[in-house]
Structures are given as C-alpha cells and as structure tokens.
C-alpha cells in the first residue's frame, strides 16, 4: 500500500509541483521599474530629466491659461456666456478661488517645480561621480526653471507654498511674497553662475536650454518687481540696471529688424529671443505643439482687446502684425487671407482681435500647419524687454538720455518706418532702429515723462505674451484702479466692455486667489 501511495503522490508532485511551483523565495520583480535612487548612473541620465522638466513647463505655457491671472489689466477682455468665465473673472474684478484656468497653470507650475526638486535631490547625490561642470550645468537648468516659476507664482498669487525638496509636506504654510522672490533670486543666481549654453555666444543655435543671459534677464525682471508694490524696495533699481547693462554690454543679444521674427516658427531662435518655451507640432505621441495661438485666440475668441486699448495702439508695423480690428477688416481686400480669417470673429465678438500669434494657423498662408496647433515658440523674454527694463532703470536713476536711447530702439523697431508688409521690413538696412526717426522718437521731457513713455511702450510691445507684463506694471505701480476707472458703474453699451462687478481699487482683487481646493486639502494655507 505504501509503495502505491508513493507512486501516486510521487508522479503528480514531482511532475508538477517541483517543475512549476518552485520553492525559491517570492521575487520582487522590478525589472521594469525606474526609481530615482537607481536612475542617475552617469552624465547621460541627466538630460532626459531636464527634458522632462522643460516639457512640463511647456505644457503649462502652451495655451493662454496663465492669462486668467492678468485679465484685470486694460489690454484684454472677454465676454459673458460661452465658457469664458475663467478669463472674465479678473477682468470684472470678481475673482474666485475656483477659476478653472488658474487651477491649470497653478497645478502645472507646481508639477514642474516638483520635477525640479526631485531632479536636484536625485542628481545632487551623484556629485563626485559625475563631472562637476556637467552636473552643475544640468542642475542650473532646474534652478533656472524653479526660480522663474516661483517668480511667476509670487507675482500672481502673492504668498504661496514653497516646497524646495521632493519630500511631500501636507501641512506647509504659505511663504511670504518677499521670501518667495528671494528664493527666485537665489535660484536664478545659481543658474547665472553655472549655466552653459551655445546660445550664450550664438543665439541662432536651436537649443532650448536656458542661458546665463536668460538668468540675468529674469533676475532683472524679479528685481524690478521688487522696486514696486507691495515691497517698494526702490534700491533694486541699481540691480535692474546692472543686470540689464551686462546683457547689453555682452552684445550677443539685440533687436531683430522684424518684430514678427520672434513669433514665427522658423525664425524664433534669433538674437532677440533670450528665452522661450519651445514648441514643435510633432506627430502623436511625440507632441509639443503650441496652442497659444489659433485655437483660443482665433476660432474661439477666448480673449480679445479692449476698445480703448486698441484705439490708442501706436500705428506702424507692430500694430499691423499684432492686432486686427473692424477698420482693418473693412479696408483690406478679400485677397488678404490673414485679415479675412479674422473678419468673422471681429464681427461676432465686436472687438479687435490679437493676431500676432496666428502664424501657421491660417490656411492658405505660408507656414500653415494646423488651425489650432502650431510650432511657434512661446516667447518668455525678449531683448526688447531687457532694453525697456534698462531704460526704466536709467530713467529712475535720472539718466534720461540713456533711457530714451533704448526706448527709441524699441519704438523705431516697432514702427519700422511706417511699413506694413513683412517683405518691406525685411528689406530695411541692418539695425535700422539705431537710426533716429523723428516721427516716432521720444519727444524729450522729464524722467517721469520718459517712464510714462516706457510704460506705454511696454503695454503694446508685450501684448498677450506669457508673464503678463502689462498687469505686472499696473500692479507694481499701483495703477490697477486708475486704468480701469473708466468702466466703473458704466453699462455695456457705454464702454463696449463687460460690466465691472468688483472694485479695481480693492487691493484684494489684485492678487489671484490660490485654488480653493488647496486650502480645503491643507487648511494651513488659509490666510
């Protein structure tokens, strides 16, 4: 009997249990699992992480969500109805903490910041194993992005949570505005020190990494915001002047003859573009297209210009390229496809439309790619901004002549001798904007007159660009109320604009509320 049992047990057990079921330990199989602790093995692993960070920022800037923070300025507006509430809130000074578009860029910026924190911690552990300059250059890219984003967050939301490590802190309090700005400065200084890019010497190189020059420019921008409301540290004008002067003296970057060059895909890596969020309309799933342009601006009319703003838009090439209003569509021939494409929307929305971002989105025109996706990079820092920051710093320090010189550069380039066609502008002599042009040059006057002229120039030069320069100017100079006063208590019929629901002089309305769900999830964020 025993032998039979052995036979019967032996056959199936030996035949299957040992063959298949094994007796070894259970294996934690991580062959396809990638974790930070084991990832950064050598220098070649750094770049994919940097690409991940830039990619995430690209996703945060590919469309105009961030404009929802800046709509209280006197440049852009939108309409009631449809799905435009997120952009209209700030325009009507009725901000809520439930703004869907604000949530989008808030979330994306912080995701990118966490990517930076994770990279900085993970890659720093490899110090000593990877060549120091290589490692620090990679780290400097992460510091640059983090510094730039903390600057953008602080100027939109004022006091914000400020994680600096990948460790998750669910009870964090907000960091005061001034400290966030200090962090931005510290990060950008690291970037300024360690960044190495071919674009520091040759701006036409198609390379998306940040440069030393870009770090200097963003440092200047941060210092300039500190000179005004709410910190009013006017001593920083010296720093603004120093940093912008360094860029000017370096000479690698200056202005393009063609204002449009910075907005049109093939020409965007140029001597004027200091930093841009690079976009390329790829093929699924390798996509990094821009939606900053056609889609939201043209077809859907998410935002367009306030009449008052458009009506005082200085004439010239820049205006022709940037804006299309009823008069433009009425007076141009039907063969002008660009104007024709905007005509229906100008009529429907009864407002002038922003046209400067539409390159590549209008069928029949050269460069056409797609109606709402394009390869146009999203400019974040142009030399004209450095010139105007420098000009203002000079004016603030009493050097009117030097300030006027750089203001005039920008004005002349924008006017382009009154030309309207790109071909004609391209035919102008090199650096034509360095030559006096009495029709457009600053007429002379006091430092205050110059500052007014610079602010007016900034208002039109950066229309609709990421970062909301017009809004930042109004904020730092506490002019939000004054420029919007004309709409207070007025009907739609009287101003042609939507009703002003809140009070533009109410400083609480000057800051974007951080998304309400953040406070729900971490009550320590309440203020």
């Amino acid at each position, binding site marked *: 009997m025993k032998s039979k049992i052995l036979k019967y047990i032996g056959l199936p057990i030996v035949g299957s249990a040992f063959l298949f079921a094994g007796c070894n330990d259970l294996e*934690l199989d991580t062959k396809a699992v*990638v974790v930070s602790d084991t990832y950064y093995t050598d220098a070649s692993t750094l770049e994919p992480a940097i690409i991940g960070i830039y990619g995430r920022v690209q996703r945060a800037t590919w469309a105009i969500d961030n404009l929802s923070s800046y709509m209280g300025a006197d440049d852009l507006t939108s309409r*009631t109805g449809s799905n435009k509430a997120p952009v209209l809130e700030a325009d009507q000074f009725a901000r809520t903490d439930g703004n869907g578009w604000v949530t989008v860029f808030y979330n994306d910026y912080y995701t990118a910041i966490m990517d930076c924190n994770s990279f900085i911690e993970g890659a720093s552990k490899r110090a000593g194993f990877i060549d120091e300059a290589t490692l620090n250059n990679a780290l400097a890219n992460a510091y640059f992005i983090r510094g730039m984003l903390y600057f953008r967050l602080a100027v939109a939301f004022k006091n914000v949570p400020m994680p600096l490590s*990948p460790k998750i802190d669910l009870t*964090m309090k907000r960091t005061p505005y001034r400290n966030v700005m200090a962090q931005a400065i510290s990060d950008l200084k690291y970037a300024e020190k360690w960044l190495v890019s071919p674009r520091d010497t040759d701006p036409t190189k198609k390379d998306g990494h940040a440069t030393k020059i870009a770090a200097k420019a963003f440092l200047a921008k941060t210092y300039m915001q500190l000179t005004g409301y709410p910190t009013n540290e006017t001593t920083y004008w010296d720093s603004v002047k120093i940093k912008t002067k360094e860029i000017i003296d370096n000479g690698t970057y200056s202005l393009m003859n063609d204002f449009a060059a910075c907005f049109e895909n093939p020409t965007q890596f140029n001597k004027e573009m200091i930093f841009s969020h690079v976009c390329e309309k790829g093929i699924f799933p390798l996509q990094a297209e821009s939606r900053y342009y056609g889609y939201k601006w043209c077809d859907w009319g998410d935002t367009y210009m306030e009449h008052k703003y458009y009506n005082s838009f200085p004439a010239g090439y820049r205006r022709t390229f940037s804006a299309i209003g009823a008069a433009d569509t009425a007076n141009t021939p039907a063969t002008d496809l660009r104007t024709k494409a905007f005509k229906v929307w100008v009529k429907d929305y009864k407002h002038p439309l922003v046209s400067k971002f539409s390159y590549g989105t209008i069928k029949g025109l050269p460069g056409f790619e797609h109606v709402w996706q394009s390869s146009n990079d999203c400019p974040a820092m142009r030399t004209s901004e450095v010139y105007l920051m420098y000009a203002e710093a000079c004016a603030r320090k009493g050097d009117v002549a030097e300030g006027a010189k750089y203001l005039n550069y920008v004005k002349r380039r924008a006017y382009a001798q009154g030309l309207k066609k790109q071909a004609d502008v391209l035919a102008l002599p090199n650096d034509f904007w360095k030559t006096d042009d009495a029709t457009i040059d600053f007429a002379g006057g006091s430092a205050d007159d110059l500052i007014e002229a610079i602010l007016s120039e900034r208002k039109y030069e950066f229309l609709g660009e990421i970062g909301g320069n017009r809004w930042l100017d109004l904020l730092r100079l506490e002019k939000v109320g004054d420029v919007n006063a004309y709409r207070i208590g007025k009907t739609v019929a009287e101003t042609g604009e939507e009703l002003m629901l809140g009070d533009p002089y109410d400083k609480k309305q000057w800051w974007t509320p951080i998304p309400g769900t953040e406070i729900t999830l971490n009550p320590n964020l309440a203020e």
Partner: protein
Amino acid sequence: MKLIRNFYLGRTLLVLLIMVLYSLGLSAQTKTVRGSVVDDQKSPIPGASILIKGTSSGTITDDKGNFQVQVSGNNAVLIVSFMGMETQQVPVGTKTQINVTLLPNAIGLQEVVAVGYGVVKKKDITGSVGSISSEKLLAAPVTSLDAGMKGKIAGVSIQQTSGAPGQEMKIRIRGASSINYSNNPLYVIDGFIGADISSINPNDIASIDILKDASATAVYGSRGANGVVLITTNTPKKGNFKISLEATTGVSNMTNKYDLLSATEQMELMNLQDIAQGKTPAFSAEEIQAFKDGTKKATDWVDLVTRQGISKNYSLTATGGNDQLQYYFSANNLDEQGIVENTFYKRSSIRSNITGNLSKRVKMVFNTFGVHTSEQGNTQGTGGLNNPIGQAVNTPQMWAPYEANGELKNPRTWESYGGTFLVGNYQHPLQKIRQNQENMSDRLTSNLDLSVDLGHNFSLVVSNSGSFTSNYSGNRTLEDYITTPVANITASQNYGRSTNFIHSDVLNYENKFGKSNLKVSGVYEYSKSIYRNMSGTVGTLATLSNEWYNLSLGKPTNVGSNYGQGEMRSYMGRLNYSYADKYLLTASMRADGASNFLPENRWGYFPSAALAWRASEEGFIKDLGWVYNLKLRLGFGATGNVAVSTKDIFQQLNAAQGPNESNYPMINGAIVNGVRPAAPTDPNLTWEETKQYNAGIDYAMFGGRLSAVLDVYDKITDGVIIATSIPRYTGFPSYTSNVASISNKGIEFAITGNIINNKQFTWDANFNFSKNINKIEDLGNGVDQIFVANENPLGVWNLVGGGSKYVVRKGESMGAFYGLKAERLWQLGEEAEAKKYNSKPGEWKYADIDGVVGYSAQDRQIIGNASPDFNYAFGTTLAYKGIDLNIQCVGSVGGQIYNFTKNILSQQAFIQNADYRNRWTPENPNATFQTMPVGNDYSMQYVVSQYVEDGSYFKVSNITLGYTLPNDLVKKVKLGSVRIYASANNVLTITNYSGLDPEGSSTPNNSDAQAGIDAFSYPLTRTITGGIKVTF
C-alpha cells in the same frame, strides 16, 4: 460490519413481512409492474429507488433506468425517489407498465455546491452561497455570463451600463469596499483563479456558485474580498455520442431617443437669448423660415450615426464516452453588430473537457478552452461628450452633413451663426464614427486535475492550470478636418502577451466517528503571472494604402514596452465538522504571500469560522411535519484585496507619460521624451483587508417546494488603498496609501416557489431583495473627505474645484455627487439679489453656504448618491407541455443619477433640451425648468443638483417563450429534441428618470467612487432574438 448486519436484519424482516402478508391472504393476487424512470430531459435515471408505499419492499432501477417490482392488488402506490429529484407517488391501479418522469428537486439539499478547493452538499453549507444552474442561466438566450446571472441571486447586483457589443456589466457582490481599485468579484473557472468571464461561452457552464460572505470566500484569502464566483463547466456525460446545435439571431434598437427641440425652436430660443444679452440675434428670420418651410432640412445626427444592431450566435456541443473516458466538446461563434455604426464584437471559442479514470484510484479532468475575440470601436462607449453619440447629439441640427456633391461637409465651413457655435470644435460625426483598426485577443486556458484516492480516507487532488493570452491591436488614424490633418496620421501596432500559471495540491481526509463527520483539507498553492507588451507608432507614412500592416513605411514616433510579474504562494487549511447532521462547523485559515509587496509586508493571514444548526433535523421540529428544512448559520471571515502590483509600491521616474506631459524639442526641433517623477506612493502598501460577519437562515416547507434564504451581514474593510487628493503644490494630485476604512452592512432575502410541478405543467417563481448600506468609516490621517484622483472628465473640463464631480466623505456612502445645490429659480422682483450672482429671474438660485456672496468651490455640497437603497428581482418560469415561458424582472430603488446629458443639452451654448418648451418666463413664473441662461451658466462650471435625478426603476429585463416539439414528431425525423424560442431583452422600463435608460452609465465599471453619471452613455438596446436548438 455493522452495515452488513443491518442489511441481513432488514432482509430477514422483509421476508417475514412478506410471509405474514401472504398468510393473511388480504390480496391473493400479486402482479409484476414494469417501468422506467427518466428525468425531464428523457434521460434514464439509474439507481432510482422504487418503494411500495406502506411496506419496506421495493427495488432500484438498473443502468437503463428500468425496474420491475411485485405488487399486490390495485391499491398499491409506488414511491419513486432519486437524490436531487422530487419524490413522486404513483398509484398502480390496473397498470402493469409505469413510466415515471422525475423532476429536479426544488431545493436540492443533496446537490453539491462548489465552495472552492472542493464541494459540499447543499445541506452542509455553513456560509452564504448562491447558486445558478445551467438551466436557469440559459433560460433566456444569453451570449455572456453576466447577462445570464442578472437578477438571479440576492446580494449580487448586475448593472448593464452600456449597450456596446461585448461590454462587460458592472457586477458587485454585497457592495463595494475599494475606492481606487477594482470591486469586481474574483472569478474561478474550474479552479483557475482570476479567470476572464467576458469571453466564456455560456453554453459551457454547468453551474455557477457565488460565495458571498467571508466565511466562504476566506479560502481565497487575499483575493476573496469582493466575493467569489465559482464557475464549473460541463462535465462530460457517459453514453452514446450526443450532439446539439443551437442558432440564434437577434436585432437590437435603441430603446429611447433624446428629447430635443426642433431646429426652429432651438433657433428661436437662441435668438431670444441673444436679445436678452443685448446681442444681435444669431439667426435671421429668413434662416428660420427656410427651416420652417423645408427649404433647409435639419439633420438628425443621432440617426445618422446609429443603425439597427444585428447579432448571430451559433453553438455546438457534443458529449459522450465510456466508463474509462468521457468527453465534452463545444464550439461557439458570436457576431454582435452594435447600434453605433461600425461597432462590433466577435467571439469564436472551442472547449474540450475530458474526464477519465486512469486507474481505479486515479481520476483525471482535462479541460481546455480556446477563444478568439475581435472588436471595434467599443471603448468609445464611455468618454461622455466626446463619444460618437455625445458628439452627434451636440452637433447643431442646422448643419448639413453633406455637400451638394455628396461629399462629407468640411466642418470648418459650417456657419458659426455669429459665434454661437464654436466651429473648429466639432468633428464631423460621420468622421468620428469611422473605424480603422483591429483589436483582437486570443486566449488558451487549460487545467489538468488528477484526483488520487490514497486509501485510509485520504485523497489528493493535484491541479495545474495555465492560461496564455495574446492581444493585438493595430490602427491607422483617420484624417479629419479638425483634429487630425493628413500630416498627423500615424499607424501603430501593439502586442501583448501574458501567462498565468497556478499549481495547487489539495490533500483531503474524510471520516466518520460515530455521529461525527470530519473533513480536513490542506492546500498548497503557487501561482505566477507575467505580462509583456510592446507598442510602436510611426508617422510620416510613405503611403496610407498599407494601413498599419507595414510600419516600416513610416518614421517611428514612439516605441514603448511594459513588463510585470507577480508571484503568490499560499497555504490553506480547512476543517468541516458535523455532528449528527445537525451541528455543522467550518473553519479555515489561509496564508498568502505575494511578491507584489516588499518582503516585510508580504504575508497576510485570512482566518474564517462558521457554525450552522440544522434545526429541521431536531426531533421537535421534525414532529411539526411541515418544516422541510431549517438551518441557522453564523459566520466570520477575513479576506483581502491585493489591488496593486509591484510597480504601484514605488514612486517611479516615468518615461512613458502622455503626449505633452514630458516631451520637449530641446535641440533642433527634435521632440524628445524626458523622464519625470510619477505619482508618489507609500512603499509599504499592502492588501486591503475585509472582515465580515454573516448570519443567515435557510428555510423550506411543503417538501421543499417553497424555500427562502435570509442573510444579514456586516463587513468592514480596513487599509483601503486610496489615492488621497493632496494639495497640488506638492506637484502631484494624490498620494497612495492604505488608510481608509469602509463598511458595508446589508440584508438579503430570496424566496423560491415551486408552485406547480407535474408532468404537464410546472410553474416556478422566485423573488429576491437586497439592501446594502455603504459607509466611509475613516479616511485616515484625520482627513474628513477626499476627492477621487484622476476622475474621468467625461468630456467636461475645468469644473470649479479642480474638476471633481464626486467627493468621498467620512460618514457618507462612496461616490457622492458634489456640486451646487439648486434651491429654486430666481423670481421677478429679485433682480437685485440675483444680480449679485450674475443671474436674473428664471435662472437657478443655488445654495450659497460659505458666507461669501457669489458661488465658489466652497459652496459645493453633497447633492446626491448613485448607490441604490435596495435592489430586487423577480423571475418566473412556466412550462406547459412543450411550451415554456420565462420572465425576468429587475428593479432598483433609491439610487440617483447625474443626468449630465441633460445638463449639457440645456447649457446656454446648446439650448437643445425639449424641457425648454416649458421653461420659466415672466408669464410662466411657476415653471420648474429654467429660462435660457444669459449670465454665468453655472451648470457649465459646476455639477448642479437640478440634474440629479431619481434613478429608481423596474424593468422587465427578459421574456423568453420556447416550444419543444413533441417527441413522437421529432423521432420521426430522427432527432433527439427540437426547441424553438423567441426572446426579448430590456422589454419594458418603468422609471422617472428622464434620460435614455436608468441603467446606462458613463463612469468606469470598475469604480464605485465614481458612479452614476450618464453623459451620453452608449445607449442600451432592446433586443429581439429568435433561436432553435436541436439535439441529435
């Protein structure tokens, strides 16, 4: 020895008795009665007992089911009985030939029920187990298992959420206890754990046993928490080769249509809306007139993208064999064409079940199932506004589908009517429904079980089962005018393969000690699964004519691969003890070790114990006479839910994120994919653990003709893995850890009546009821509520408050709708107050609860819940001579539905909902439906309570009428039997829900934290099927 002695004693007594009777000479004549005993399928029943009433004499039938017995006189009555069959009393009268048809016993206490790693007799069950026989499952022609199970078992809720062909239904056993992970039950087919039920051929199923309470499911340990469905496929039947063929064909149609305004009504209302906003009306008088007088024709887009669905199903089964070897073969071919154009699901399967006696002591079971499925376009059933139906309903009726030359209209040439419609946002619905893809899956599952009788009351079952699955999908994107211009066309292929292997050894010991009955089982089990897949996408194709078959014609844009492995080792012991057939005890303990988790979190222990008292075996109850069965059960068990895989316990650097997530054209415009950290997770993740108490009563009377089961349970799940929403400044939406506790308490009740049961006429009816109360007990970390991470947007983006439509809140049931509570419409005279909310009379006034004037994320509150208060079902079967009628009804009460469809159709951008006919106007201030919104339409930014509707319903889900041709007729054409039938599905729905169907849902089937939103869900259909089944 004792038995033998009794036998002798019995025989002696019998002989004595006969002698006594004979000597009394009461009835001098004895006669020989011959006969046969067959079942309702006309198959002979060997071994049936024939007893002469009032005597102890009788006989049993031979292997052909025939018997022969001596009776005295014409007053004799034969008692014919067989295990599992209804006992019959047949008066002999003057007859000498008696043929008896035994019908299955209504309650079947002797039937065996699968309980996992073995079977027990129904009478010995201590846990809560529901069973469905093949006969009940196939009463109506079903092409999927879930359809056949619907309404059959109390506590098992089955919801058909989509009408897409081949779509699985949402199945829950006693509620849901996981928030982020699956609540689907564990399926075990012939011992293969974790089987796929979507591709099984229902005709192959012999029985389904559903383990509901944890004392029963604990034998499956870390996989038993959601209940276990044990499926046993057909066992071959010894005898001559028998073959049967079945063919059915059905047509399906949408049960309802969307209630829309006519084009002219819509245009007129939109004009009024424009006027109220001080805008020029979008539509000119001439334009409206053109639609009125028919110069222009409105387009019925839904009609254009839908059709009548047709399904065909053919099956063949064959069985036979001798004493040594028996076989069962089946083949099935299903072709379902969906009601949305171009959608289909096809399935072909074959099965071979072989049983055999390898020797006197060794028995073998060898089952193999192979299935091939292919489908197209069925995943488009979800996705809300983006799916073909959603898109079709929302495309303006004023737009024409075709150019004058018959070409599809370029959507960019449609008229925007002054910006009213966002041209450029609309794909052409007829482009949307085109398909250019193939998706297929091949699966081979096999199990080989050897049962060895070791003698000395020991037996051993050694099983090896394995499954190999291969998936393939290929597609080329189709160009359209809006989202995919020619330059964006890509072709891709995706291959996946997965293998699952399970080895188990079950050693049993079974013995009797006096009145005690003991069975002990020990189980060792090891399983391993590995999956691999690879996908490649290319763009810039040299030619489109080779579709996706030759990827070398393009440039690679993406190549990805995936790999994962899981191992599990388990030990399980179970003890069944009964005393005097009255007191029953089952106890088990399972230990599971899973490789998914870190070594220190690997092992889980899952004990269970259950007691039952068969009160009906007690003398004092037996004496009552009318109690056929009375059993009280009490059980406890612990189970788990593995939920996660190895990858989930690490925060990964992820290189495979979606488009635009981590791509960047860093150098020379070449887009490169970078790495970024993926969502953080607790490395110490381990399984979710459920403890459940169950008390139940089984009761039967009238000889088992009326039976009832009542169960109450209390189940608590701890360590529920949740992706807790965390503030976004952390860089991530959620953090995953084992923190929550969820309870499910409920009551189930089922009653079955075998009202009439005779040769001519049988009538069965059953009713069941189940109520489950789901409650979030704790969310960990002192958190009171969380939002479900990564909610399905259903085509609606940017809702205020981060896009959440649901909240999971302590003290509430899982998956509550979260939004603004509509109080009433603003009325005339309230203009000033309404203006503060950017509203006007006739628009909705919502509860403003945060103390700050204006609506914000802080004004949201719970406004409804999808989980029903209770479900019930009713089924009845009537059979008269050859005719059989089967009716199945299901009902659900108290669940709510968020009618997103209606919300979208009413939004100011669409104004299509027919309710606008009865809208609020200054002249009609008592109306309950809003006026056209002209201020902020909050229903575009919030989930709003006016669209939360009562989702209660009563459905006649199926009626089937069959006719089995008379035997003599069939015999003439040399056939075994012929049955023809007609069946209607989703026959009638009684509900207050204003959408298409209260069962339809757009939320993912595997989630309970997000359930009950109807956003243009794939319409459910009414299907009429006709079929014939022939047995040779």
